[in-house]
């Protein structure tokens, strides 16, 4: 096992380098560059700036430069935001992480319970209700559901803030600050949860449906175990195995920022940065951010593989 992990770990390095090159080329292939995004520039000025930013060099040279800087720990400097990429991302990424992590928690908890109950009570009214809900949520784009929630909770009822992360001009600290932020988090988290809980519920439901018909569930019943422990212990653990893989996939999602949700709720997350960096071709930001996500993806997959092997005893042997 250790050997496997080590081997798998080593593999990640060339994969990461390969990916970084691929992504670099990809961005280089994008039509237009940062300079193009400003139509006001005169061509001379544009040429001057291109030289200044090194955008006129061949891709390979630029990549090598970027890569050596990266190895030295220099993630570059945002053209658009005029500040080091690390400090830029640092400002926004944790806000995204906050709502993503909280909603991840809710998503999994809710999906787990509804999925399991739906499966156990297949075709009951609860199952039907959940199914309808899941697909209704899936049939409307997120901005729509967002607007709905804002209108209802923030405007009509006035119990939740309309957007943002803090009250305008607020100077709260510590606990009060925490409370304030949590209040602002409610709606975006609800949206994010709503968006992803559906599919996960379906996954759990199917997994459970398979498992509850197995012989060992009958054995568990024969032991006189409580239904709860039969379902949530014996069945769930088997049904969860495939989901472990899904959980590891969520890793990059924690940091990638939810573009639309953040936009609607004016949440100061990294989603907007990402979109702007892309439309202005702010390569340093794009590269660093994408590489961060790639890294997390690859790590996530790696974790998925090893947790899967660790959790499913059947796979370990050979």
């Amino acid at each position, binding site marked *: 096992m250790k050997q496997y992990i080590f081997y798998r770990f080593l593999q990640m390095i060339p994969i990461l380098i390969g990916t970084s090159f691929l992504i670099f080329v*990809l961005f280089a292939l994008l039509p237009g560059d940062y300079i193009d995004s400003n139509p006001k520039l005169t061509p001379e000025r544009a040429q001057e700036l291109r030289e200044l930013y090194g955008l006129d060099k061949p891709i390979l040279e630029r990549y090598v430069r970027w890569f050596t800087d990266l190895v030295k720990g220099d993630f570059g400097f945002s053209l658009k935001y005029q500040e080091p990429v690390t400090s830029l991302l640092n400002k926004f990424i944790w806000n995204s992480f906050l709502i993503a992590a909280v909603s991840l928690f809710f998503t999994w908890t809710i999906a787990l319970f509804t999925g399991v109950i739906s499966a156990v009570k297949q075709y009951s009214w609860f199952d039907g209700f959940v199914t309808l809900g899941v697909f209704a949520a899936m*049939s409307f784009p997120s901005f729509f559901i967002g607007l709905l929630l804002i209108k209802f909770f923030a405007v009509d009822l006035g119990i939740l803030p309309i957007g943002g992360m803090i009250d305008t001009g607020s100077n709260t600290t510590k606990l009060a600050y925490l409370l304030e932020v949590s209040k602002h988090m409610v709606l975006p988290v609800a949206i994010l949860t709503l968006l992803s809980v559906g599919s996960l519920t379906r996954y759990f439901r199917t997994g459970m449906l398979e498992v509850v018909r197995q012989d060992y569930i009958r054995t568990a019943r024969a032991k006189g175990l409580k239904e709860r422990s039969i379902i949530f212990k014996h069945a769930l653990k088997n049904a969860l195995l495939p989901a472990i893989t899904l959980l590891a996939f969520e890793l990059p999602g924690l940091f990638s920022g939810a573009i639309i949700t953040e936009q609607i709720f004016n949440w100061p997350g990294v989603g907007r940065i990402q979109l702007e960096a892309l439309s202005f071709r702010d390569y340093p930001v794009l590269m660093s951010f994408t590489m961060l996500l790639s890294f997390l993806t690859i790590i996530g997959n790696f974790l998925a593989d090893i947790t899967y092997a660790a959790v499913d005893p059947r796979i370990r042997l050979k």
Partner: protein
Amino acid sequence: METSLVTDQPQKDAVSKPISLWKQTYMRLRKNKLAISGLFFLLAMIAFSFIGPLFSPYVNSTVNVNLMNHPPSAEHWLGTDKYGRDVLTRLMLAGQISLTVGIASMVLSVLIGSVLGAVAGFYRGIIDQVLMRLADILMSIPGLPLLLIMGAILSEWKTPSEYRIYIIMLMLSLIGWPGLARLVRGQVLSLREQPFIQAAQILGLSDKRKIFYHLIPNIFPLLLVVATLNVAGAILSESALSYLGLGVTPPTPSWGNMIDAANNLVDFKKRPWLWIPPGAAIFLTVISINLLGDGLRDALDPKMKR
């Protein structure tokens, strides 16, 4: 005296012709009311989209400022949009694109994902390594820039914009397999340790058969879930794609871009006829595919009570 007792050779005829899997599935499906209503709705949706326009007087109607945003009326059953076009007619026309895109992309991505995942999990070793590392790379390539590049390339190649959505959906399926493939692979990894796969091995069955007849049917429930989720996803993401010029180009309607057109609060509050119909259409489609899928799963599940 009747000797209807059954012994040695009971109804040899009844047994001699096999009930094909499909026929059996169909027979079981038929008994499942929910699945049948799903099928019915889906067919109705298809008929609505493909045959419906023949009955609409508004198929060729043009932008009409005097009819802007009219609420539902006797002439326009679902009202008109901001160009004064009949929403009902557009809903039908939109269905043609959305249904095709949704279903085609679902079929394609499920096919690719499950086959590659099953192959990786089944063979393990080097094939698995290569496929999974490829998956790693594909998964870490950011979607948005890739789409922009594709858009630029398609525009460079002067591909007619009507076809772009199909090309894009094809490309997306071609690169979008890693998620499903990993899921499938995980399942296959534990399935392949089951004695019945060893049995297939002993019988000298070909790998193709082992994968397609023994492994994949056992992950069918998972595939069905993914498939239904995919349809909804594809229908909605089509409209997201049109922001990048990769979806259908306006004025061609799709359900997704019809909802998106109502992206402000005023439409939201005051003109529900703009967004409820496409949303409901997507909902109905997805739910009916899901009902059908559930029914199919139950029909294919030998242990299901009938």
